[in-house]
Structures are given as C-alpha cells and as structure tokens.
C-alpha cells in the first residue's frame, strides 16, 4: 500500500520590502523540491509580511508591503498573502507565527476530513495524513540563528523540531555549513530541507530599493503591477530608507525583556 503524501504548507516570513521575483521563486523551488521527495504534497504557500514594529531600517508601512505582495501574487494559484502577523500590536516571534498558522491549518484539515467522515465513514479520517507547516527561507536566514539575542534557544529548537525548514541556497552561502555548526540544527537535520538553486539569482529587496532611489529600472526584477504601485505611492526614497535609523531591531529588545 502506497503511503499517502503529507499535505504541506510553506510559510515565508520576512520584510517583503518590497516583494521580488526572487521571493516568489523561493516558493516555486521549494514546492518542486518537496513534491520531488515523494513524501509531501505542497498544498499551499503563505507570504507573511512582518509588522511595522519590527523596526528594521527602511521598512515601509505594512499596508503597502501587503498591497504589493497581493499584486505580485495575483497570478499565483497556490500562494497567498496573510496579514495576521502585520496586524499584531507588537512584533511576533517566528515560532508564534508558525503556531498560529499551524493551528489554522489543522482546524481546516479537521473540518474537511470531518466532512468526509459523515459521508464515507472513519476510514477517510484515518487515511489522510496530518498536514505540516514548514518555514521557507533563504540560506542567509540560517546564519541569523547565530546573532546574539535575536533568537531564543527554545524557539530555534521548536522551529526545527516541531515544524521544519525548507531552505533555499543563495549565492555562495553554504547552508550545510550553518547546520553543521549548530548542535540544535544538526540534531534535527532530517527536518531541514536544503534546496540548491542552480541559477544564481540574487535579486534582493535591498538592491531593488537602491535602484529605485537612484531612478534605475527594476523592471523584470519585480512584477509590473508592483512597480506601478511603488510609483503611485512614491515609496522607496532616500527618506524611506532612513526610517527606523538608529533604532534597535524589536526582537533584540523584546527578547531581552522576557524572563529566562
């Protein structure tokens, strides 16, 4: 009897300041890879832009970042943008965001298999594997675990043990190295999926913002609809890049306050 594939949802957290073709590529690459393992069936993707309280320099208002992401993903049949994280009063730890979405996914799953139950009996519920939610990220993300006070140890543990990571390589960054150098990551390496991006495609939002400030073209790096939005609202200027200048990133202050 063939084992049923595990339904999988991919969640990408980040600034999306602005969303780029490369962000969307991450999803496509991850989906191909995870489906290719034969164990998973990717059923959805979620883009979750960080809230304004993250305090990162140059971060424009969440409402714009969300609007742009929605425009960019209009043509996608499986990736959606979710505003929950951006609507929270304070910056939300990644693990908390994962827990939130996972709760939602489970509820949805129970609801749909529950309906099966009524019509075709309990067998339907037993055969359908429980869905999983994994965090989708670039290789640079793994190295953030090393930054002092940016992550809580118990959160890193929960992230890789309970959820899992799908990590796309970027440039010359070797994610295998980061996994190797961390005991926690190493211990859960079976739940960390490293995807090689063979085409070097380093479209970073930072570079896009830089180009926009200098009046240079970003066509074909981000969707046309997003470019239009940016021009309409005059986002990404020298002023916008100075936003939060000198501020401490919220995770660093929030986690310092918490009791050990």
């Amino acid at each position: 009897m063939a084992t049923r594939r595990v339904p999988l949802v991919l969640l990408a957290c980040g600034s999306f300041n602005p969303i780029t073709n490369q962000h969307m590529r991450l999803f496509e690459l991850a989906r191909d890879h995870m489906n290719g393992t034969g164990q998973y069936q990717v059923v959805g993707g979620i883009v979750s832009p960080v809230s304004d309280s993250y305090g990162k320099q140059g971060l424009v208002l969440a409402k714009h970042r969300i609007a742009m992401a929605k425009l960019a993903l209009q043509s996608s049949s499986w990736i959606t943008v979710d505003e929950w994280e951006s609507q929270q009063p304070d910056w939300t730890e990644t693990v908390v965001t994962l827990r939130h979405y996972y709760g939602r996914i489970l509820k949805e799953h129970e609801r749909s298999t529950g309906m099966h139950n009524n019509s075709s009996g309990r067998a339907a519920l037993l055969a359908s594997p429980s869905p999983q939610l994994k965090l989708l990220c670039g290789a640079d993300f793994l190295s953030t675990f090393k930054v002092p006070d940016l992550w809580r140890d118990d959160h890193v543990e929960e992230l890789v043990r309970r959820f899992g990571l799908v990590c796309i390589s970027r440039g010359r960054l070797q994610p295998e190295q980061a996994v190797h150098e961390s005991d926690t990551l190493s211990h859960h390496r079976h739940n960390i999926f490293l995807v090689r991006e063979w085409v070097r495609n380093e479209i970073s939002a930072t570079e896009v913002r830089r180009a926009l400030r200098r009046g240079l073209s970003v066509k074909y790096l981000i969707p046309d609809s997003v470019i239009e939005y940016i021009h309409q609202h005059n986002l990404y200027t020298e002023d916008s890049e100075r936003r939060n200048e000198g501020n401490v990133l919220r995770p660093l202050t929030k986690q310092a306050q918490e009791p050990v």
Partner: protein
Amino acid sequence: MEGQSRTKVVLLACGSFNPVTNMHLRMFELARDHLEDTGQYRVVKGIISPVGDGYKKKGLIEACHRLEMARLATENSDWIIVDSWESLQPEWVETNKVVRHHYDELAAEQNDDDVDTVKYSKKRPVSLLSGCPQLMLLCGADVLESFGQPNLWKQEDINEIVSFYGLVCVTRSGSDPHKFIQQSDTLWKYRRNIHIVHEWVTNEISATHVRRALRRSQSVRYLLPDTVVDYIKVHHLYTAESEQKNADVVLAPLQRYTGSN
C-alpha cells in the same frame, strides 16, 4: 546636459531567445540606464532579433514560437520590440549583416532624402546631423568573449560592428570583459565604442537552465514573464526531444567559415 545634445541610440539584441527570459529583458533595461546615465545618449528603441532556424544550434526550436514568446514578453514594454526579419531569412545571417539591415531601415525611416549619404558614408554615423539614431549591438559578456572562438566570427565582421556601430556589453559573473578587450587589438582600438555595463544584481537566468527545468517539469515561474510560461505550457515546448534537435548538425557559422561549402 539634456535635450538635443544627446545622441539617440537604438539597441539591437541578436540571439537564440530560446526562450526569452527575464534576464534578456533586464539586459535592455540595464543598458538603457547605463547609456543615459553618461549624459551623452538617449535610448529610443530596443529590438529583439531572434536568430533563424538555419543557425542549427542544438535544442533550437522553431522561430515562429521564439518570435511569439518574445512578443508576449515585450507586450508590457513601451520601448522594446521584436523584429522577425532575421528569422525569416532562408539561411543563417551573420550578425553584422543583421546590424547593417536594421541600420539601413533606421536611416530610411529617419530621412528619406539623405538615405544614400548615410548608407555609403565611411565615417561613423553622424546622428546629430542626419537625426538617425546610432545603432548599437547589445549583448552579454559571453558574446564578447565568443569573438575569440575559432571560426565563429569573421574578423572583418567584428571590426565592422565595433568600429562602425558600437557594442553594449552587459557583464555576467565569471567574465572579465575589460580583460578580454585589453587582450584584443581590434577591441582595444575601438574600446570607446564598447560600453561595458555592470550588472549590479547577479541574474544568471540562462535559457539553457530554463529549458532544463522545463524538461524536468520544474517550475520556471518568475524567471520568465507569466505569458511566456503559459505559452510554453500550452504548446508543449522544450522537451527532451526538442533538446536533441540539431544534435548531429554543425552550427551554421562554423560550417560556413571552415570552408565546408
């Protein structure tokens, strides 16, 4: 300085466009930004000229498809167009002849009376006087380096392109166009007609990679415009079979220049 002191430029990109990708399109945008940033030029048009089937490159699918995909890709561009002249020629056409063809067309468009003068002038195109834009060949650094490949180019054709027209070369990581120019006497002599554009974001979306991904049923979304992705799907282009096309045939330039006629 603004306005009339700027030389009008048309950028012409020749290539397989098999298929056209976001990288090809980026090349145009980068080149335009670069030239206009010098203050000396105003880029008025970009032309994509897909090569004819007679080129006989391995994996080259029919020109009609490559043309249509390029058209779909440039639908939303207000300055880049696709030209089918090259692809409609029965035999493969040398690049300098394609450039010459487009130059003649531009000259004819611009000034009917002065066509003869412009066409037969031995000097650099005097755009300011005739109003005819300067035509430059747009390419990646790999094309520049292909000048050094035996029997791929005729020396006099390279000379014509760099001396009479001009080259805009967008770098790709791993290549050093300045070094290459340095090492070639011809290129060095006309280095002022060769504009090197540094790609500030590494963007190596190669058509080869795209074809490979398609053969393996992997996603190429966001590497090409959506309309092109859809077209490829609808027409079932780029399979293991299509990649074998011309596998046992010699590339047209090599055939022509090694005297196998």
